[in-house]
């Protein structure tokens, strides 16, 4: 199985971009040959998709990468180090990189993972997306579906 997993929170403005892409991919029927899943809330649930039957995974999340707002980039978890400082791992105080670290320390086999990071214009306690990301939304959909060859 191939997975597209959208991460984020609907209440975080551009932090919802991963969820919205996963939703829209499924709504438009672009999820051919892979499953599109929105994963808000508990990042640890990502571990449930790490298994021998998972061929590969594209995880989409908003990411502060130092790019211009709205720019996106595909990369491997090994390409980056996190700048977040967390006490540990929790459900609402999450960091995707911590989940990968957690899995590795536990000896859980992590399938091939590609991250699609989208530079947020604004992260704030609001519903919706910033105008910058909204304007490029179709571009993100095409890029994400294109990863699986279904654009």
């Amino acid at each position, binding site marked *: 199985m191939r997975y597209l997993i959208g991460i984020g929170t*609907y209440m975080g403005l551009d932090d919802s971009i991963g969820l919205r892409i996963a939703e829209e991919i499924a709504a438009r029927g672009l999820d051919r040959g892979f499953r599109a899943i929105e994963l808000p*809330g508990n990042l640890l649930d990502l571990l449930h998709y790490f298994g021998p039957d998972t061929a590969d995974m594209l995880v989409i999340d908003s990411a502060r*990468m130092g790019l211009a707002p709205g720019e996106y980039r595909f990369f491997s978890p090994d390409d980056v180090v996190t700048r977040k400082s967390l006490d540990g791992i929790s459900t609402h105080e*999450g960091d995707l990189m911590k989940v990968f670290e957690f899995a590795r320390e*536990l000896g859980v086999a992590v399938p091939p993972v590609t991250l699609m990071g989208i530079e947020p214009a604004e992260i704030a306690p609001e519903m919706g997306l910033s105008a910058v990301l909204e304007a490029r939304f179709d571009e993100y959909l095409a890029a994400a579906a294109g990863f699986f060859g279904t654009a």
Partner: protein
Amino acid sequence: MLQNVDIDIHHLTRVEGHGNIVVNVTDGTIETCEWQVPENPRFFEAMVRGRHYSEVARITSRICGICAVGHTLASVTATEAALGIEVTPQTRTLRTILKHAENFDSHVLHVYILVAPDLFGAQSVFPLIPTHGEVVVRALKLKRLGHEWGSLIGGRTTHPVTVVPGGFTSLPSAADLVALRERLLDAVPDLEATVETILSVADQLPAFDRPTEYMAVKEDGQYGLFTGSVETILADGDRARYDIEDYRSITNEFMLPQSTAKHTKNRLRSYAAGALARVNVNYDQLHPEAKKVAEALGLTPVCTNPYMNSVAQVVECVHSVYESVRLIDELLAEGIVEEGLVQPTRFGSGVSAVEVPRGILYHDYSYDENGLCTRANCIIPTNQNHGNIQADFEELVPQLLESGASEDDMALKLSMLVRAYDPCISCSTHYLDVTFVR
């Protein structure tokens, strides 16, 4: 006894959402002792206005990524009450199994990932990997079971898609249910090991009793999860029963300056909802295997130690597994039947009360003659517990001072107290913040 204390835990970790603990003692006088919730309102009740009844649960499910099943079930149940829809026994049974799945999933997460580090003297679950790796692996195994158990019935666990007003859009096959039954029974050794783990660290749970009022859903003949009525029990065993439709006069919401979240009260200045409240109210309806675990863990009603909420969650995990096996057997005996959705018979107002992991979740809607929502009200369980946490603080802090506890110990005990309630305050951000290294 400490004369001066300055505890300011800004955004307590290992809880879901943002809450602060502030305690100031000067020259032996407690000046501030507060549980503060500084989060924003989210206006979901406004978002569903004007939406068709078929859309409302899809929206309210997004209130929470942990209790998405609960918000879905509360929503469709209130909508069905408003629309005069009486679902079939098969639908009701499948929804009960789904509810058990969510409670199990959330409880495993809370007990193992959020609470266990305190009991093992660790800052988080990470340091437990080298020292108690088998416990962490077991936690993930059980959590995965909860996730897949819910996905089978709800289509997926987070924001289930098969649960709609009037029934289900798709049903699990008999073979699916047989397979789930086997997996549930296969989990029993892991549950037994869970009990052993909790027993091994039970002495780390603070001995603190503060009688309060415990509120839970009550259903005739079974452990209350949704529909029926609401019952509260006091420490002396005095019970009071209420109609769900009277939820406003049971919860009596009010605001305090220290918190942006609403507080509630009923017979006393505050009440508790959640696993401990459910066990206190519904102890007699627990599955016999769950009762055995409760006895082994020293949980007997009416238990007034709030730290025991985590123990009550373990008891409920056992109950959920055995009850679901029983319900699956019932379904298999009757045979799974394809059923159409039950259609509305009227358009009016309706209320639901559903037991989600942290307590009673109330949803209340009104619909116009076109099936469009005209009014909504949701009261989440975490808000119902804020007042009780505050009342606990006010009794615990003087006790800790009297006992000569250090400031660090006080901070730990207060943090553990909040975590015991398993508060789910609201969603915070998860965005990545990274530097490229290659």
